[in-house]
């Protein structure tokens, strides 16, 4: 059945032009054709049943084909990153384009950083997800991106920060595709910060991550986009033998957020810890689709999501654990918990298991509810005012997800962010509760 193209789809199709982002050039035409075929994902597709992009993108957001004029706002937005003291090196992208002036490259050897546009042909491997319209859209229109390669045995545990800012000056789609390769025995910490100003736009960011044997990556993502930003992201990870991935995402900004994660175990005895938190209010909408594919035996995956929804916000968690026929001795656990602060908040979940091997231990749990009145009563009976008691409980609820962050300085940043959010959004104050 042919569906009429929306104005947003038409704008994308008309804006296509081959040429940019060197390493992506060979894939661009195919991706465009696939996107032209599928169009934007809509609610009739099972994976998108709660987030209909055809409806979300109600007007055109054509990609920015030319580098925009330097904006004075960029520096201010970059300064809002709470990781200023923590990151060792920074790469800044504004409205989809690399900003050299605002960036500082890593100083040590062992890490290569280049812009996607500077890489020619097959020098960087790109693995498109052919059945994913979001990924096709990304490849077809990516204007730039970072290529970070951590060399064999190198240890760069002092974080590298990628900052993606949207100035809101352009009603456009800002598309970036990044590739991170951590070679055998190497380890790295990468922070991904999204900060945006007011003004409607679409951000479409893909992270392709490949971890070699014994490699380790801590990836921390803070999404603090502007209030009218549609945030689309795709995380594609392949883990080699004995590799370890620690991944954390806080979704606090944006109007509509769609986070996709596809984690594939390619080598045995690897481990992936994927966690996240939502702090949503107003009419924010956040949808996480996370697929963990146990393609080989003896791997461990852990997922923990803590979602706080205030006002009329809507949180969605769709997690899927696949255990292939050969993937014996798999240990997979997934849990998602929602805390709804008002009558009109909403949480939807679809925690799936798809299991073809018998010698496995897999499970998932999902809960949804409001604050436990008994707990509030307990705190109040000890002299803590109601608002503060509630704030303490909300902060504690979210903090369980932050606990998976091993770097203490970074963990503290998130705890502080949660407290700020409670102050601003709910009027509850958690501050002073423990002072």
């Amino acid at each position, binding site marked *: 059945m042919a569906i009429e193209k929306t104005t947003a789809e038409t704008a994308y199709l008309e804006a296509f032009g081959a040429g940019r982002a060197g390493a992506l050039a060979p894939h661009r035409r195919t991706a465009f054709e696939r996107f032209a075929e599928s169009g934007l994902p809509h609610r009739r597709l*099972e994976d998108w049943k709660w987030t209909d992009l055809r409806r979300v993108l109600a007007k055109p957001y054509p990609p920015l084909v030319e580098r925009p004029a330097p904006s004075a706002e960029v520096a201010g937005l970059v300064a809002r990153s709470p990781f200023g003291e923590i990151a060792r090196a920074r790469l800044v992208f504004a409205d989809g384009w690399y900003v050299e002036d605002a960036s500082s490259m890593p100083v040590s050897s062992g890490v290569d950083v280049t812009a996607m546009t500077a890489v020619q042909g097959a020098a960087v491997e790109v693995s498109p997800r052919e059945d994913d319209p979001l990924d096709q859209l990304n490849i077809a229109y990516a204007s730039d991106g970072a290529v970070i390669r951590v060399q064999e045995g190198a240890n760069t545990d002092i974080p590298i920060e990628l900052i993606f800012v949207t100035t809101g000056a352009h009603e456009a789609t800002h598309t970036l595709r990044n590739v991170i390769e951590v070679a055998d025995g190497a380890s790295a910490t990468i922070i991904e910060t999204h900060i945006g100003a007011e003004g409607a736009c679409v951000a479409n960011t893909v992270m392709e991550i490949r971890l070699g044997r014994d490699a380790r990556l801590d990836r921390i993502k803070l999404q603090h986009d502007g209030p009218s930003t549609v945030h689309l992201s795709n995380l594609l990870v392949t883990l080699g033998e004995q590799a370890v991935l620690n991944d954390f995402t806080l979704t606090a900004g944006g109007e509509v957020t769609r986070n996709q994660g596809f984690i594939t175990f390619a080598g045995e005895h690897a481990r992936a810890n994927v966690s996240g938190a939502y702090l949503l209010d107003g009419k924010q909408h956040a949808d996480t689709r996370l697929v963990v594919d146990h393609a080989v035996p003896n791997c461990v995956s852990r997922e923990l999501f803590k979602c706080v929804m205030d006002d009329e916000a809507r949180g969605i968690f769709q997690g899927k654990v696949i255990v292939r*026929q050969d993937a*014996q001795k798999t240990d997979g656990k997934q849990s998602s918990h*929602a805390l*709804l*602060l*008002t*009558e*009109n*908040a*909403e*949480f*939807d*979940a*679809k*925690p*799936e*298991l*798809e*299991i*073809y*091997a*018998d*010698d*496995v*231990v*897999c*499970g*998932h*749990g*999902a*809960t*949804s*509810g*409001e604050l436990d009145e008994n707990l509030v009563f307990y705190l109040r009976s000890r002299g803590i005012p109601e608002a503060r008691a509630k704030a303490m409980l909300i902060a504690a609820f979210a903090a369980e997800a932050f606990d998976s962050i091993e770097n203490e300085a970074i963990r503290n940043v998130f705890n502080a962010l949660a407290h700020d959010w409670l102050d601003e959004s709910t009027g509850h104050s958690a501050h002073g509760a423990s002072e």
Partner: protein
Amino acid sequence: MADVETIERVREIDVDKYKYGFETEIESDFAPKGLSEEVIRFISGKKEEPEWMLTMRLDAYRRWLDMEEPTWAKVDYPKIDFNDIYYYAAPKGQDGPKSLDEVDPELLKTYEKLGIPLKEQEILAGVRKQGEPSTLDEEGGGEYASGKVAVDAVFDSVSVVTTFKEELAKAGVIFCSISEAIREHPELVQKYLFSVVPQGDNYYAALNSAVFSDGSFVYVPEGVRCPMELSTYFRINAENTGQFERTLIIADKGSYVSYLEGCTAPMRDENQLHAAVVELIALDDAEIKYSTVQNWYPGDADGKGGIYNFVTKRADCRGANSKVSWTQVETGSAITWKYPSCILRGDNSRGEFYSIAISNGRQQVDSGTKMIHLGQNTSSRIISKGIAAGYSDNTYRGLVSAHRKATHARNFTQCDSLLIGDKCGAHTVPYIEAKTSTAHFEHEATTSKISDDQMFYCQARGLNEEEAVALIVNGFVRDVIQQLPMEFMAETQRLIGISLEGSVG
């Protein structure tokens, strides 16, 4: 005790030698093959239905023509040719028998061969008079020990014998075939039929609405506790006959009814289609307990043959404080596509779903439930136990949702899967939608295999491998078995053993 029996059954029966795979030779009265308005008129005419019923059937048929076969379930089967099926087959000479004497002896033999000598069978066979205690009651007691079971036997689409009608009538309970109800109680049928599962609800429900040949109708009047268990056996008999049962149960204010449905089918090579619809309506303070044991032919070891079971079952807890409980034991059928659901419309209403789904050989099961919370203080509970063995796929698919006005809704869901062998699959696809903060939803799912420790422990105590598996599996599903009426408990434990035959070693 029961486990020993299970093992004996397992030894006796082979996957290829389906126990109930015999065919009774009774002449059938067929409608022409295929589906058309003429066939629907033929069925409606055969059943001497009033004009309004025919109109509704034709309406359903026209909707069905515009619909597409659903493909979202995790089942895989060759495309069904809906024009290669007989939509009506009535056993000949069965123009409404009123007593056992009128029943074809072949039929009674069939019940004997079915080997489910439940209390119903005893009564049917005249072994025991109604009201006498049954030997089956010895181990139990309580509400199911009455020794009274009313049967509405369905033999290839037509209700052939209805027992205990008089006693039920004394209590005011109407228990008859749906065709009879359409003729005798049109006001009730018109009011409630299609009110829970409308004609155009889904592809198979629409098909059923157009061609349903028979089924059961129950009406329990206000304040009446139905004096006995009601029961129906479904049996698919004639070759190439789709079975399209339609069941409608109405529990009026403050009433209670327990309904049992069990089924077996003879062996054959061609796939058979079964698309039933069950509608339950519980008014204020009423309770309906609906139990199913499904043991249709699952196909042979290579997956050949077997029943396609596409069923729509839905309960409407329409009144305040009403309650509906679904209990199902699914061991048969090649393909199962079945989601007994509860619409919790009345305030304080409650829905329950207890399920055991066992798949072996090449069986594919996609089953689960929907609990739709609309009223305030509604609660629901889901306990699902899936067991996959052989080359089978076993999927739990369920929805729990709370509407914005469904304040203080509560749900607890537990889905456990057990895998036996490394060629099978167990999947869990739950949907949870909470649109109000006061809804408390808890969902938990686990997947595991029988642990080596458990097996070792049992075998160290002298059980062989199959006995150990049967023991462990019966323990795994115990929570659900306990929900079954006494009549089905023993049979179910045997069925579990039979279903898992050949899955170990």
